[in-house]
């Protein structure tokens, strides 16, 4: 099924590459797809302006509702297809939280599940041709990562008090090394939100930019564009994988950070 859709898309792209005359020559604009534009008119972007970001975030909400509310509407003991996917996602993340962060992390499961569903839906929606990938923006991923970082840090201090600082004091190392290790641990702790957010945003941005670059080749090569189009096909398959794996990685790292906050003595 997916293979047929991909081949159909490839054929469509080939036809477009042959017939499209608006961009003759090698004019590749890989970053144009990430531009934030107002949905209506062409005015300045205030904080409340409905933009294409708003549109695709809203579609992500609709996708989540379609999966978790419409899909489970039957409440069937023998599940339908949609309900199976919803239950699968639920069981997958719940088991991850339980295995990685421990049973006492289960109260935070709804937020982790929210983050996972949002990222996975946005990633897949962003892969629809001509769509807008919200998770490719540093602003979005930085908010997600900072929310995790701040809440985990606060939670660590609330649950363990000053004992949370033992996370940085590696008691298994020789005493002379401990201050140096503490500095390193502290730095790596504060680098966490940076790598956490840039990993997701960078992956999605890189994938989309590469697709765009190949599309530029296809537009410039005429009949020979069949080669870059097969390249696009292969990269698109890879991006489908990356879309899921990055959501998985973001979620599992959230669980790892949560475990550090709940059990800082390692």
């Amino acid at each position, binding site marked *: 099924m997916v293979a047929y859709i991909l081949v159909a898309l490839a054929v469509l792209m080939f036809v477009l590459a042959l017939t499209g005359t608006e961009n003759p020559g090698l004019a590749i604009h890989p970053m144009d797809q990430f531009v934030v534009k107002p949905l209506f008119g062409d005015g300045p972007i205030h904080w409340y302006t409905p933009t294409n970001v708003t549109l695709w975030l809203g579609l992500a909400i609709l996708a989540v509702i379609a999966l978790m509310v419409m899909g489970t509407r039957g409440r069937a003991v023998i599940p339908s297809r949609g309900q199976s996917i919803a239950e699968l996602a639920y069981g997958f993340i719940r088991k991850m939280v339980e295995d990685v962060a421990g049973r006492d992390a289960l109260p935070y499961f709804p937020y982790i599940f929210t983050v996972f569903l949002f990222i996975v839906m946005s990633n897949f929606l962003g892969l629809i041709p001509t769509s807008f990938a919200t998770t490719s923006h540093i602003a979005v991923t930085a908010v997600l990562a900072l929310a995790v970082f701040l809440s985990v840090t606060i939670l660590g201090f609330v649950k363990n008090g000053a004992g949370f600082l033992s996370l940085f004091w590696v008691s298994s190392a020789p005493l002379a090394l401990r201050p140096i290790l503490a500095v390193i641990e502290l730095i790596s702790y504060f680098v966490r939100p940076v*790598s956490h957010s840039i990993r997701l945003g960078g992956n999605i941005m890189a994938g989309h930019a590469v697709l765009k670059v190949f599309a530029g080749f296809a537009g410039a090569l005429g009949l020979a564009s069949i080669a870059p189009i097969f390249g696009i096909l292969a990269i698109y398959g890879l991006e489908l994988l990356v879309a899921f794996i990055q959501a998985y990685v973001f979620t599992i790292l959230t669980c790892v950070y949560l475990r550090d906050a709940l059990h800082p003595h390692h």
Partner: protein
Amino acid sequence: MEGDIASMGQFIGAGLAAIGSGASAIGVGHVAGNFLAGALRNPSAAAGQTATLFIGIAFAEALGIFAFLVALLLMFAV
């Protein structure tokens, strides 16, 4: 071909930064290859370690993404 020394430097820098992507590819391959070698030696223990595998791959890949980001910044933001 028009342009100046500065933009030439930008492009050369971006190309050099892209080497980092290749380095991170080596890292990811190392992680996955060692995981596979261990998994083939002891397949029963492999299933429980896939999470660790993905975390390792994510850390290795993040640095490649940083290199890519530097290239992008040089290309478009400087």
